[in-house]
């Protein structure tokens, strides 16, 4: 019983922590944040499984985490009001070629961050961008004024 409760509590704790870190950090990890995530994984494992090295314990932990993920996905789908809390919100940081400094400040983004994201999508001049959005998962989407290709998603790390 304990192992299920420990998994639940620590999952929620990590979720809050990652949300608190901010969206930018979800895709761009500094050396400190990378270190934190690696160490956190090890510490969390000890906290969840404690002295339990059994196969059943491992299966219970993984099953609990999978169920929480499924539940949060269902809640996000079913209840619109919960969606911003669970998945975060999209923020427009660039409109008609102009950077929205206030929105960027709130998201702790520099103009270099936005320019770099645009460059990665083959955009040479942010003046071409009609709409630049920092998505809930920390990725950037750009809608160019030419309209060709529509919304461009920032490639993931495995792209």
């Amino acid at each position, binding site marked *: *019983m304990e*192992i*299920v*409760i420990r998994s639940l509590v620590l999952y929620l704790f990590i979720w809050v922590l990652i949300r608190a870190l901010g969206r930018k950090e979800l895709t761009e990890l500094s050396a400190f944040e990378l270190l934190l995530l690696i160490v956190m994984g090890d510490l969390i494992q000890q906290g969840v499984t404690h*002295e*339990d*090295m*059994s*196969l*059943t*314990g491992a*299966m*219970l932990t993984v*099953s*609990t985490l*999978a*169920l929480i993920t*499924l539940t949060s996905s269902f809640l996000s789908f079913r209840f619109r009001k919960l969606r911003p809390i669970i998945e975060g919100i999209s923020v427009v940081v660039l409109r008609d070629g102009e950077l929205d400094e206030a929105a960027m400040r709130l998201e702790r983004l520099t103009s270099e961050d936005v320019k770099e994201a645009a460059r990665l999508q083959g955009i040479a001049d942010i003046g071409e961008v009609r709409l630049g959005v920092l998505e809930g998962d920390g990725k950037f989407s750009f809608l160019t004024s030419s309209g060709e290709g529509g919304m461009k998603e920032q490639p993931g790390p495995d792209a």
Partner: protein
Amino acid sequence: MSTMPEEHTRARIVRARLIAAVWIAILAIFVAAGLAGFFGVRTGIASATSGGFRLEVEYPRITRSALPMKWQLTLSRVGGFDGRVRIATTIGYFELFDISWLHPAPAEERSAGGRTVWIYDPPPGDSLVLLLDGRIGPGLESGRAANTAVSIDGTRVVDVSYETMVWP
């Protein structure tokens, strides 16, 4: 060659979702069973009274491999003990455990007749309490049944049977 995915009928998509829902239900039942303590750790107490002696064994009833365990035996008799106490337990039972210590240590210890035998000098007072500390051995054990019998000066006075189930 087209990279477009194969188009599925609505019935096939619904069937696939149903199969996924069944798996999720199984997962939920598994976690609920874990929450309810079905996979341990649960402690059991086996007790018996005979001829003025009361024997009580507290043992891990359902547990998992490599977890800490406690096995405690309490033998009591109003008026105390007037002879050597011989405690004999099914030998295979203790193979489930990695034993750290047994307190108090027996005056004699041996194996006889498929049993682990501990012999104690007559203890002071009305009761003898033995505490065995350790953990369940790692591996794919399914559990063991045991019988613990107490004899005083060679005469069996009381015994209890119990079983430990170990989830891998």
